[in-house]
């Protein structure tokens, strides 16, 4: 097994996976956000590949979302990871971004461009901090006009072909969303997805005749499916694709001629396309088998852009030409010069947990290790997300660990998406409950492997995964040689009170109410069990984190230090929830891998 250097494995240009890909209006170019300059910036490139043009030149600030309009780009830019994105306009040829929204205390998220190419819907909490309202931004003048300012968490959806109506969605929780049709002139709002209990509905786009709305919904089914919802009549969506895996993404072209969707089949993204005029399925050219977090469809419906990563190849942008049947790789983001066959492929395993459910997990086993090897149990964030091969954040870490003879198990404990809504919902109001027993099942699974060294197992995670790591370290202390918490909540009571204002109305259903459920939250907080912690702990935190504020890490570190426990703590002053600057990401990765190696007795 080769032992590539740390710098080689971490030589990954990262994409802003939460930012859309976008096509130029003429479909000849694709734009994306990645950190090739050392910070997340907007780039564009020909769909044929070739020279990538860097469009923003941010150093401290961070490019987030973007969209490509006939009047240039609209780019969300925040200050050092604060997530208070402000919308900027930038000429398509490049230049200097002009701040259109001009605030620092609220965030704006990009919605959908009106057929006139000038009015852009945006979501934001400028009206009430705790709510998400919908506005229309004139891309040329920067004028911002409210569309929906009611209490609640609203998101703009696609425009109806008549240019007068648009779909909007309202989120009650991560698993409960309504879709409305809003008439901009009259302000009239029609609910399109009346339902009882939880049901998650997401608008995709209107049909060409304007009579139907394509939606992703979990109505009556454990998985998200793709349907067409008639605007009139019974309003029961007709299935387009419904199966035993979830539809994770769908796009429709400008004239609603083509529909493209992505199905998450046991962690792997599979691509589907249909000609809506003929109702015929189209063949999607071969794309790498991996994880696709972002797609875009050109206005003419001909080209599909996809961001795809695999276990052995970090995220890159690909363009598939649905007419020509060709696929082109646009970017080459792994610079380490290591052959893919020298990198580890994980095995998908499943093992039972306390209630008889099976926990799916990715197991990376060092190839030619002699004797028993140490292991890292890595818990993903979210918690409503999924560990999938191809994640840029974990590519280098997992490969580096495996190359040094450390096994990695990345489980999708309850609360994870991808395995049905029922499994996802199990985490709601049960943080620090069943999932901790899944973590115990995971470590016990590892311990059953004859090639694992029982004394050298670590737990690691970021965000919710950091909370899980803290829970495991404090409440299951007997299993761990060390643990790493990246910006995880340590105290659910203070966490629930310090999340961004626009999250607060969801906290009761998601985690618990800090007043009404105080006893439960206290009982489930790692901070309540700190004296149980035995093994060395590392905590990394961004000072500007608006989601898990620095106090969550501070309190755990202070308490542990007061108790004389060994804890390594590093705060990054110019970062938020995650590391946007390549230099900081490398510093953090070096700190945490050095820490893991030291306590797992591994030579770097």
């Amino acid at each position, binding site marked *: 097994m080769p032992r590539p250097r740390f710098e*080689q494995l971490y030589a990954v240009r990262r994409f802003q996976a939460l930012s859309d890909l976008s096509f130029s209006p003429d479909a000849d170019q694709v734009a994306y956000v990645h950190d090739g300059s050392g910070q997340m910036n907007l780039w564009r490139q020909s769909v044929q590949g070739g*020279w990538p043009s*860097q469009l923003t030149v941010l150093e401290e600030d961070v490019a987030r979302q973007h969209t490509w309009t006939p009047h240039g780009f609209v780019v969300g830019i925040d200050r050092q990871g604060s997530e208070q994105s402000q919308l900027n306009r930038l000429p398509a040829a490049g230049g200097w971004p002009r701040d259109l929204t001009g605030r620092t205390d609220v965030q704006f998220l990009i919605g959908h461009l009106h057929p006139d190419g000038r009015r852009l819907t945006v979501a934001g909490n400028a009206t009430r901090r705790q709510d998400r309202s919908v506005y229309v931004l004139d891309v040329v003048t920067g004028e911002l006009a409210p569309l929906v300012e009611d209490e609640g968490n609203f998101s703009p959806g696609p425009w109806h072909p008549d240019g007068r109506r648009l779909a909007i969605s309202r989120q009650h929780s991560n698993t409960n969303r309504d879709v409305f049709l809003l008439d901009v002139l009259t302000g009239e709002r029609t609910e399109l997805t009346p339902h009882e209990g939880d049901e998650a509905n997401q608008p995709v786009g209107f049909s060409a005749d304007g009579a139907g709305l394509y939606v992703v919904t979990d109505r009556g089914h454990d998985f998200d499916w793709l349907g067409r919802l008639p605007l009139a009549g019974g309003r029961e969506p007709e299935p387009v694709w419904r199966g035993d895996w979830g539809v994770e993404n769908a796009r429709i072209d400008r004239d609603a001629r083509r529909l493209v969707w992505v199905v998450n089949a046991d962690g792997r993204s599979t691509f589907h396309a249909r000609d809506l005029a003929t109702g015929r399925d189209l063949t999607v050219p071969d794309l790498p088998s991996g994880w696709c977090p972002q797609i875009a469809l050109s206005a003419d419906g001909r080209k599909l852009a996809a961001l795809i990563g695999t276990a052995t190849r970090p995220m890159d942008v690909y363009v598939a030409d649905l007419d020509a049947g060709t696929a082109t790789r646009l970017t080459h983001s792994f610079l380490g010069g290591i052959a893919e066959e020298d990198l580890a492929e994980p095995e998908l395993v499943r093992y039972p947990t306390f209630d008889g459910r099976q926990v799916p997990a990715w197991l990376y086993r060092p190839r030619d290790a002699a004797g028993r090897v140490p292991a890292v149990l890595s818990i993903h964030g979210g918690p409503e997300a999924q560990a999938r091969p191809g994640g840029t954040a974990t590519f280098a870490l997992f490969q580096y660990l495996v190359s040094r003879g450390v096994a990695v198990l990345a489980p999708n404990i309850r609360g994870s998406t991808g395995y049905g809504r029922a499994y996802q919902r199990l985490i709601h109001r049960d943080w620090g409950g069943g999932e901790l027993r899944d973590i115990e099942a995971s470590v016990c699974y590892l311990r059953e492997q004859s090639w694992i060294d029982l004394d050298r197992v670590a737990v690691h995670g970021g965000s919710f995964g950091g909370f899980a790591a803290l829970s495991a370290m404090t409440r299951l202390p007997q299993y761990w040689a060390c643990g790493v918490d990246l910006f995880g909540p340590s105290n659910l009571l203070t966490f629930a009170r310090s999340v961004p204002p626009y999250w607060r109305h969801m906290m009761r259903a998601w985690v618990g109410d800090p007043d009404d459920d105080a006893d439960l939250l206290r009982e489930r907080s790692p901070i309540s069990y700190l004296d149980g912690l035995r093994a060395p702990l590392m905590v990394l935190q961004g000072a500007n984190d608006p989601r898990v504020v620095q106090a969550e890490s501070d309190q755990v570190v202070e308490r542990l230090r007061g108790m004389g426990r060994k804890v390594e703590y590093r705060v990054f002053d110019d970062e938020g929830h995650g590391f946007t600057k390549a230099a900081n990401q490398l510093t953090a990765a070096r700190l945490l891998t050095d820490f893991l190696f030291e306590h797992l007795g591994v030579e770097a």
Partner: protein
Amino acid sequence: VSRPPYEQFAAVRRFAIQSNLSFSPDGGHVAYVQDAGGQLNLWRIPVTGGWPTQLTLQRESAVGQHAWTRHGFVFGIDDRGNERWQPHHLPEAGGWPRDLAGRPDVQHFVGQQHPDGESVAILANATRPEDMSVYRLDVRDGELRPLLDDEANYNLPRWHPDGRRLAVAHAIDRGDSDVVVLDTATRERTVLTRHQGDEANFPVGFGAGGLYVFTDRGHDFNWLGRLALDGDCEPEPVWRGEWDVEFAGIDRAGRRLAWVTNEDGISVFHARDVERGRELLVPELPRGRCVLFAIAPDGRRLAAVIATASRPSDLYVADLDEGTSLRLTDSFLGGIPEDDLIRPELVRYPTFDGRRVPAWLYRPRTAGPSPVVVAIHGGPEAQDRGVYAPLAQYVLSRGVGVLAPNIRGSTGYGKEYRRLIQRDWGGGELRDIEASARYLHGLPWVDRSRLAVMGGSFGGFATLSAMSRLPELWACGVDLCGPSNLVTALRSVPPTWRRFNKRWMGDPDEDAELLTARSPITYVDQVRAPLFVWQGARDPRVVQGESDQMVERLRGLGREVEYVVFDDEGHGITKRANELRLMPQIARFLFTHLGVPE
């Protein structure tokens, strides 16, 4: 009038000047060193354009010269600006560079690869710190074997197609060098350019009819000639004119020769089929300064990094067969329309001895009277070529004019003009600076009470001289890593430079009196206007002591001085973050003391 922020002007990817361009063995790609991503790293790109592949991932140190062999890349990496490049090897498929020499105390230059593609000529001062010797580096086993190792300074190694002979320049003194051919089998050495007095001779490469050389024999300018190998010693002109030949290269087979002439600051490209004696038409390339130049091994393409007045350096490839040229990189990220930038006018004005000083004059678009910065280039044996400079364009956009003179000592105007600076630092050229200020005084749009002087390296010395010895002319001054005391400066230059000291500036012992009389530190008490000083702590050329002593003395005298030292830089700025820190600071200093709103 648009007023872009400094960052927009500076949104430029930079090419390493202390580097080169290298074609892949098949001529299909070009490798170059650029700072996209924040540090100077090695990249490759197809000659037909396309995706640029980053080959090295240095974060703290810069890649220098490189060679592209069929066994991968050989290149130098220094340690945070210390210029002691260490030769490294990297497989063509990428990976991690392997240090081949393990001599961090030695400066290495990566030279030309051997015709068999298995080895590369390396220059290094490994035996005696003051001498540059020639080595042959075997790319496969990483062994460095000496070829020429005596008390001399060699450079520009060029292999004969027979793989046995090697031409090198032997630097005797400043402006005095020979071309020597070494037979590596017999160790026999032949000097091809026997001469008396000063004569600068450098090899270009072997080709049809002998060895092509740069020479200034019998002429005020560098010309391109061909030397027969049988020892006739009289080069036959290939191109000889009233301008310098600044670059030349020949293909692997010795058939196609290409060269660049510097015609009043503008690079002009030439090519010839030397086998058939036919001129080749070079496709149109931007009108500006060629910074780096190479010819492909098969002679089909030329690669050039070119900067113009309104566009920073980019890499271009000209296809001599197809008659086409193509820009491969796009390094100006700020997106400022070229028409919004100020193009300079080339002016000439008389100085004290009747000579005329050529200079680039940038007039702001704002209504006058305007303040003006006189910007003195480094070297001093170098030339301001009037190409895009972020700081100049930034201050211009705020209404500050710029005059960039090529005072005596500058290259490009003949060796007689160039030599005027030798052993006369702080002499005639200071009067040229005075003439520059007087010229500005005569322009109706210039506010004579608001002139600043600024420069780096030698230009820093010139700035300090001007501030201390012509104090009545300036509202403020900016010195970047300039020597302040010629006696201490000469004692602290890199060892390989020392043999040239005497001719260049003077001997610190024998000429101490002259050097003291010409040192700004001697006149420090005459400085009146506020001064800004920047210094890189790792600078091996002008050590930090040069700036320290000036600043200490000025502070002791109660003068206004702003002093900035960067711990992680050497002679100039290599890191983008540092540049973005320093330049706005300098601009603010200028605006404050020139009375211009930011």
